């Protein structure tokens, strides 16, 4: 079955990103196709490579990047939400005249249309948030 996942909160502050990760992993293990993980609201903060969590804690962003690499997952960060919160890739850096970018490996920035498309294409969309 085709599944899509929506993540509405940032890493560490709320459990949403953890729950979404475990759900996505379990879905992949059962052979389902996860067509997209969309990061909206504060969820965009999952996509920064600048985090350094304590050594004895999980690394939420790296975990998503790894999962994306192994399963060819499409991790999409909403551009409008990302601009408000300072998550930037090379394109956005150039377009908005910023002097740095912070997007993590495996994440891409795109429009809200990608969320709607996921809703249309997927058999189920499961949302995690506050």
């Amino acid at each position, binding site marked *: *079955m085709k*599944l899509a996942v929506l993540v509405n909160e940032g890493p560490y502050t709320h*459990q*949403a990103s953890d*729950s979404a990760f475990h*759900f996505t992993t379990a879905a992949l293990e059962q052979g389902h196709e996860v067509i997209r993980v969309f990061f909206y609201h504060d969820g965009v903060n999952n996509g920064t490579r600048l985090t350094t969590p304590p050594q004895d804690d999980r690394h939420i962003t790296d975990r998503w990047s790894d999962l994306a690499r192994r399963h060819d997952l499409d991790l999409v960060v909403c551009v409008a939400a990302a601009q408000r919160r300072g998550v930037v890739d090379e394109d956005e850096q150039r377009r908005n005249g910023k002097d740095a970018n912070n997007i993590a490996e495996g994440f891409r920035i795109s429009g809200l249309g990608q969320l709607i498309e996921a809703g249309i294409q997927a058999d*189920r969309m499961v949302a*995690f948030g506050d």
Partner: protein
Amino acid sequence: MLHIVNKSPFEKNSLETCLRLSSAGSSILLIEDGVYGALAGGEMAGTIRDALADRTVCVLGPDLLARGIDPGRLIDGVEIVDYAAFVKLAVEQPKVQSWL
């Protein structure tokens, strides 16, 4: 339909609204701080028991364990599921809604 509730009913109104607006035959899954809603001794227990008459109520085991709640403390009839069963619930039910 699968209804997912992730907030404690002692703090927020999500579970109350989910119970008001879910239909007979639907499944309700309590995750994250939502698992506190399944405590047998809690103020919300009566509402959950009423819902069990025509709906299924599940709690996510890993979240229950994290919060130190012994399965013996849950309302009778509430089922404990793991992430694999969470996925199965989402797949078996025709639609999914998270009461965020």
